[in-house]
């Protein structure tokens, strides 16, 4: 029964995610398409990799992601309000409105802020794991990346350092079939990412990324051994990117609708989990309807709230570049203030926090 309860909670998480991430119209993606936020990246089809792995970690394990791991943050109960705040870049955004949408970060939930350059997080995650080992904290680091990012030099650097310096880290590769328009056949010619691990001396496994329990089991075991043995593990989760790369992409330009439909209808991580729960009598159609309705409502309310809020104060353009503000930046800040005094009418200052 305990398994059923935890499975149900895993399921609820998945559906909550699905509500946020799967809703097509209106959805956050819809917001971007309608110009209300500038940009968005969906996670459709990869929810199993997020929830399965996140559920297997300790809440204090440090997460380094790429940009398509919102479900990990959601599993750690990051509030909808803050997801929205970051996408809208409003004054409630803990990131102070400085980055493009989906570049989330949360210190309390040990989720390092996302950056756009690919694979840069990989050697960083290794360094963090080394520090965790030295601190005897019984913590590991998990580092997510796609099969495309795995081609970057930083990935090679990270794998090699993790092995030679004996770091307690899980490398989690979401092999979702595409890097924007580039299919895996053009990304690598070897046997995917898992096959590279042994070349570095890293124990590696390939899992069905759309089987949330397989992902959970692999991550759980990798975590246990990483802590016990201070060595890295590589998990390659095979999945599929059902959505476009981002709102700037139209994937019909490079793949068929049939291909996408197959994954959406026949091998979707959320559907597979739902069937499993239903077959055990732990979920049913009514609960499904209710929860979907409830999630949709939560999401729409969060949108509305986020949209009403002001953008951050323009002074925040200049702070945090260094811990202290150097004289040159203070001069630039004053120069902007003066400029706005004279020409403020040409700027939408009403939308910004004073």
């Amino acid at each position: 029964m305990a398994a059923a309860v935890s499975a149900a909670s895993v399921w609820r998480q998945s559906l909550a995610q699905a509500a946020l991430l799967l809703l097509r119209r209106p959805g956050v993606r819809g917001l971007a398409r309608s110009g209300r936020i500038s940009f968005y990246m969906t996670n459709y089809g990869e929810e199993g990799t997020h929830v399965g792995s996140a559920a297997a970690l300790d809440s204090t394990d440090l997460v380094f992601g790429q940009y398509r791991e919102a479900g990990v943050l959601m599993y750690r109960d990051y509030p909808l309000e803050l997801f929205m705040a970051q996408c809208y870049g409003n004054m409630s955004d803990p990131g102070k409105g400085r980055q493009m949408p989906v570049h989330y970060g949360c210190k309390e939930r040990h989720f390092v802020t996302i950056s756009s350059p690919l694979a840069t997080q990989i050697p960083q995650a290794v360094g963090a794991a080394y520090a965790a080992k030295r601190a005897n904290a019984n913590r590991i680091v998990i580092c997510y990346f796609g099969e495309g990012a795995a081609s970057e030099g930083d990935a090679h650097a990270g794998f090699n350092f993790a092995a030679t310096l004996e770091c307690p880290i899980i490398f989690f590769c979401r092999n979702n079939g595409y890097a924007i328009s580039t299919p895996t056949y053009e990304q690598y010619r070897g046997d995917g990412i898992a096959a590279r691990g042994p070349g570095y001396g890293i124990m590696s496994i390939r899992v069905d990324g759309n089987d949330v329990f397989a992902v959970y089991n692999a991550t759980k075991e990798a975590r246990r051994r990483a802590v016990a043995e201070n060595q890295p593990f590589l998990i390659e989760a095979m999945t599929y990117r059902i959505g476009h790369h981002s709102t700037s992409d139209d994937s019909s330009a490079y793949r068929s609708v049939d291909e996408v439909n197959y994954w959406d209808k026949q091998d979707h991580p959320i559907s597979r989990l739902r069937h499993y729960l239903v077959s055990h009598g732990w979920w049913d159609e009514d609960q499904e309807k209710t929860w979907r309705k409830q999630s949709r409502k939560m999401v729409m309310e969060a949108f509305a709230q986020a949209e009403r809020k002001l953008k951050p104060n323009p002074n925040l353009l200049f702070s945090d570049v260094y811990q202290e503000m150097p004289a040159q930046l203070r001069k630039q800040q004053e120069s902007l203030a003066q400029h706005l005094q004279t020409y403020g009418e040409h700027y939408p200052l009403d939308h910004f926090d004073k």
Partner: protein
Amino acid sequence: MELSSLLTRRRVGMAAAASTAGRLLRLGAVRAEGHCRRLRRAGLERGFLQPTSAGKDAAQKRHVAHFTFQPDRESQEHGQTQKMNLFQAVTSALDNSLAKDPTAVIFGEDVAFGGVFRCTVGLRDKYGKDRVFNTPLCEQGIVGFGIGIAVTGATAIAEIQFADYIFPAFDQIVNEAAKYRYRSGDLFNCGSLTIRSPWGCVGHGGLYHSQCPEAFFAHCPGIKVVIPRSPFQAKGLLLSCIEDKNPCIFFEPKILYRAAVEQVPVEPYTIPLSQAEVIQEGSDITLVAWGTQVHVIREVALMAREKLGVSCEIIDLRTIIPWDVDTVCKSVIKTGRLLISHEAPLTGGFASEISSTVQLHDELPSFFLETF
């Protein structure tokens, strides 16, 4: 030897594109005229310095690059001192850091046995192999790894074996380290990262063991770039970099590793960052340099006084970014002239930033610029 040949001579072994750069700014017509007359009296036309006449200085002809390291007067304020060269001063700083801060680690290529310039000799034995260790040969990995350590709050001291090899790490430095705090809204930072790297010409280094890449990093807000002129300066500035809450790059003039010897305090001490130092006061012209070139400039100042009757004020910039605009401008307001000299290539070199900022300064009168 004439001032002109000093300013234009090339060092043996330096990269082809590099040369000592001189920019002469003349400010204020009235002040200039007085000096003009003096220069003309010395047999030199306005803005143009004549070479030595042939045959006169056979004994003075030089065949190799030359500078003389000039130690500063011994500091009394930091307790007992010991004779140290520059690499020993670096070792001392690292020793102090690892003793004080249990999270501090040192890593890079070949640091375990003591380093190719002996900067980490003895540290692995003293502090353990988990704190002083070799990494694989991969600069992007070294810096990325260092960032990750720093993100957890531990102190990371990374070595890049030669500044010429820092470029694979450029993405990690510029796109990641420099922007970590800003982009996360100060939720995360890698302020406890310091990158150390041997820098500058050494005589035989060629293109790839001689570079001075500070100008590439000067264009990057979020990091600090620091260059010492001496062992005493090196230890204090390095300790400041390690303690500073921003990622720092510390370039160590490799030609000074052995050649520069001074009395250096044994205990830790810091020298403030972003503070230039006026190491010699003068009234006719401000000379700005950093690293090894400070010693060349000191010699230039001596010769200018002896041969031209010119009184030079010398400034060691020390921190390249964020740099001490006020000290340089204050000096130029006083002297009316500015000459900046660096080893790095002229075009886009850091002298351009200094000269344009000084010229824009509110308190300086209109001017005209001569470059040579």
